[in-house]
């Protein structure tokens, strides 16, 4: 027989225990609310206002109209007026812009003459989904950009033909293969998932099992505990990275265009940063469950706001600011930059610096949080 009283006994006890661990259950409630608000508004897989560099070598009136038309499409935001081809290329390689538009010197003349006028658009297609909308918008440029200019005598140019041609070059991932973008990105996500979670459990486990008291009774110093606890996981991280990179090459044929120094440096900084963050979490969490929840709380923005799953530039500015504070964001830039673009250490500089800063700040916080007493 099922006894109502016995069932009630268990149920009442569970409810009481539920209210004891307030932090855990506050997070259970808070997690969906925060994440929903955050990602509901932040994610946009048809990004607009993409930063664009232009190199205008033609002084004619048509060039200005084309720039205006680009701007009006909503997909492009001209952030750089390059003065040379080299400057244009560098901006694209560094990832400062998503598009580079080049209008050649004789453009206006050729349009007037009806002589195969061209403009060249280079897209950073390492993340195909970030550029596909904009590339589609370019296709309609020739019909619309010069509608007002081509009046009077010019209106009688060969009917049915377009006044000029747009040549689009997809750089870094010309065939728009999603795996080329996702697989290097997975490196960052998988590493942070394992490393942050594993280390975040570290101190909480000592506390739960009671070994913390013995450990603190010894003269061991905070830095000794941190370095000692994290070093084994550096090896775990490096092993994981090797496995992922080898598989990316063998199974997905992800191009590896060089940039090994930048990649190696980024990898080390990212592994250490993730471990330091895990350690920081573990000095805050009272139990292993809390540590798990906090790591999870960190993982979602790492996946959704870092540019891994959705184009970084598609997010509103406030979400980009949050994304900038997440190390995965910078690591992804380093990994994609080196594997797909082969960029050297000088172009990966800003991202590497951001990663180093993260290591420093989080490491210091963790040291400040760590207590050598039970107070």
């Amino acid at each position, binding site marked *: 027989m099922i006894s109502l009283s016995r069932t009630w006994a268990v149920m009442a006890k569970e409810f009481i225990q539920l209210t004891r661990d307030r932090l855990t259950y506050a997070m259970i409630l808070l997690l969906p609310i925060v994440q929903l608000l955050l990602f509901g508004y932040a994610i946009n897989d048809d990004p607009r206002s993409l930063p664009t560099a232009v190199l205008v070598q033609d002084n004619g009136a048509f060039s200005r109209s084309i720039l205006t038309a680009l701007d009006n499409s909503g997909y492009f935001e001209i952030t750089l007026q390059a003065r040379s081809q080299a400057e244009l290329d560098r901006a694209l390689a560094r990832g400062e812009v998503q598009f580079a538009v080049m209008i050649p010197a004789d453009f206006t003349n050729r349009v007037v003459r009806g002589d195969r006028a061209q403009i060249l658009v280079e897209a950073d297609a390492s993340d195909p989904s970030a550029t596909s909308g904009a590339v589609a918008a370019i296709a309609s440029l020739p019909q619309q950009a010069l509608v007002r200019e081509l009046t009077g005598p010019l209106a009688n140019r060969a009917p049915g033909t377009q006044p000029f041609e747009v040549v689009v070059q997809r750089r870094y991932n010309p065939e728009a293969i999603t795996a080329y973008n996702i697989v290097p990105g997975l490196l960052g996500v998988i590493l942070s998932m394992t490393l942050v979670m594993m280390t975040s459990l570290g101190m909480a486990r000592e506390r739960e099992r009671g070994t913390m*008291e013995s450990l603190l009774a010894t*003269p061991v110093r905070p830095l000794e505990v941190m370095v000692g606890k994290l070093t084994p996981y550096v090896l775990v991280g490096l092993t994981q990275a090797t496995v992922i990179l080898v598989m990316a090459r063998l199974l997905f044929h992800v191009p590896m265009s060089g940039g090994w120094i930048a990649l190696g440096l980024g990898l080390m900084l990212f592994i250490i940063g993730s471990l330091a963050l895990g350690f920081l979490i573990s000095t805050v969490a009272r139990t292993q469950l809390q540590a798990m929840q906090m790591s999870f709380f960190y993982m979602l923005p790492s996946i959704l706001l870092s540019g891994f799953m959705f184009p970084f530039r598609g997010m509103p500015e406030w979400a980009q600011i949050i994304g900038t504070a997440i190390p995965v964001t910078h690591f992804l830039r380093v990994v994609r930059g080196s594997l797909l673009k082969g960029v050297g250490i000088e172009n990966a500089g800003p991202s590497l610096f951001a990663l180093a800063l993260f290591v420093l700040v989080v490491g210091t916080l963790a040291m400040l949080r760590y207590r050598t*007493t*039970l107070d």
Partner: protein
Amino acid sequence: MSDAPDLVIDVRGLNKSFGALHAVKDFGIQVARGRICGFLGPNGAGKTTTLRMLCGLLTPDSGEGSVLGFDVMKQAREIKQRVGYMTQKFSLYEDLTIEQNLTFAARVHDLDRRKERVQAALERLGLVERRAQLAGNLSGGWKQRLALAVATLHEPDLLLLDEPTAGVDPEARRTFWDEIHAMSAEGMTVLVSTHYMDEAERCHEIAYIVGGRTLARGTADEVVDASGLITFHAEGPGADRLAAELRTKPGVEMAAPFGTVLHVSGRDRTALEAAIAPYRKPPLEWEETRPTLEDVFIQLIHDLEAEKRRAA
């Protein structure tokens, strides 16, 4: 009180609060080198908190004094290097082997000749054969002996033990105490908290604390003598059932059954004898005995409660 010059623990006015709970109040204690001092008191008396303050695990809110010559308020790290501390709950790594736990302790204390020391500890414990066994699989008594070996591997000058033999069988307890006496003979000072009266009697001296206050201090004999308690015990059919009745009589400050024997204590000999006079007849056999430590401690708590009632 002895005027021993070589005090390993010499603290005064220690205070520690956790939120609203004032766990230790103006606590002071002096322990001379090489002594085994028993630390007694009811649960919640502040024993664990005091031990943790003495080994640098907790910072006192206020107070002064030294442990091993180091400032108890400021030199927690120096103290930790020279103190061995054994926690109340088993706190070694259960997923490491016996030997690995010892090696960990040796490394954390930066000891030289690590292999030798670990080997020696294993031999002393008699665990050489079982060195590769997980610490978590040891029985209660062995766990405590291993914890003691780990806590003393760095040959500390002061050993703090927090109820080291709780839940351990009598034989294992005896072995444990033999080891403590052996270490004390080599000059180690020991402060050990316990609830067992037979263990209290194995100590050179004891301190009885309640609510962070020391109520009795000295050797077991000194504490009994200082209590001024007179104890009779009665043996015979139904003796143990008289406790409740006798407790109400003037002059009887405490009456407690120990099995079939009844202990009746008081400080006023005439009043006590008058109170038990009506019962001093066959089949009960009465005899005056020396009060036990337990009699004295129960008495001390009663006094404290009476004092609190008067103050209220």
